[in-house]
């Protein structure tokens, strides 16, 4: 590509006299503009302080489910990692997989008072967790809690033995009968320690 001479340029080829005048007059004043950063720094400091106060190192153990409103309580014990049973207004899921619909469970009048599909999944999970605990495939502090539990020593919050531990994340408007069925099913499968997820007041 051949090299060509430069085209028209501002102030040289195109005479913008008014602009030249303006630039000339501005040059007589200081060209530095000092921004007042004090409010910005104040706001940042307040924001960082607030965010540090609400910061949770444990992260989110529960997944947000659309339309699920947790019951409120004044309990302050922190949650810990465990299999999660989610009960929304229409569905029961275990570890994110649909187990049954609320309507079908409420219609079921079986005398065993259990949810069979949920029992199968919980039973398999309970066996796996028990095996993990037996072979020491869990965190050391949790294994210690399992030993303490045999001697009826209460574990600290968030350090409950994972053997037989599950989380129930149910909507606040869930029928008590359905909760009874889920608790009964969990108990039959070997989950004799349930954590009811609640929202802090």
């Amino acid at each position, binding site marked *: 590509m051949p090299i060509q001479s430069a085209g028209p340029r501002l102030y040289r080829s195109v005479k913008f006299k008014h602009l030249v005048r303006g630039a000339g007059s501005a040059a007589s004043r200081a060209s530095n503009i000092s921004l007042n950063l004090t409010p910005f720094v104040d706001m*940042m400091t307040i924001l*960082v302080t607030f965010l540090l106060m609400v*910061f949770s190192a444990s992260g989110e153990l529960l997944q947000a489910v659309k339309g699920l409103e947790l019951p409120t309580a*004044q309990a302050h014990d922190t949650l810990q990692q465990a299999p999660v049973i989610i009960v929304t207004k229409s569905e029961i899921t275990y570890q994110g997989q649909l187990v049954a619909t609320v309507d079908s469970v409420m219609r079921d009048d079986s005398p065993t008072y259990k949810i069979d599909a949920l029992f199968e999944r919980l039973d398999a999970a309970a066996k796996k967790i028990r095996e993990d605990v037996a072979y020491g495939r869990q965190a050391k502090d949790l294994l210690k809690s399992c030993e303490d539990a045999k001697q009826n020593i209460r574990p600290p919050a968030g350090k409950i033995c994972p053997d037989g531990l599950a989380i129930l994340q149910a909507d*606040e408007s869930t029928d*008590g009968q359905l909760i009874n069925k889920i608790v009964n099913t969990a108990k039959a499968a070997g989950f004799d320690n349930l954590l009811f997820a609640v929202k802090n007041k």
Partner: protein
Amino acid sequence: MAASIGTDDKKSVNIELNIVPFIDLMSCLTSFLLVTAVWVNIAQINIQPKGKSRDQAQVQQDDERVILSVLLQSDRIWVGLSRVNEFQEIPKKGDQQDWERFETTLKEHKSSTFFNDRTDLEIAAESTAAAPVKYQDIVHAMDIAVRAGFQDVGLSDPQGLAARPTL
């Protein structure tokens, strides 16, 4: 006495601090904290499923101890003692359960000789299609029980309560 730092004017008493690194740090920290913030503070109530299941044979309780049982119904709460067979009925106040009286009752039981060294209690909800009991009420009852000193709350089937009122 005063130093003029960052200015060309030797007589100036203004000190200019370089706040650029501070703003950089604050911006990074704010972005990180905003991304990792947990806005809903979730806690837990620890419960143990208790009592007999419906498919288990109804056998006589061989527990020598008195057990404090709470039965939640849609229009009242029953607080009962097994073996003694004493029941207190707490009717609904307005459109809500009388939680204040329930808490007072539990605290009275906690200070009694039966339970002053114990922390166990069993709760059951009798919910029917005509008279449903909501999960929020069950959680509220458990929360109150924990506050009253009964940390070992057990959720039982209404049929499996140690002390069940006969209506």
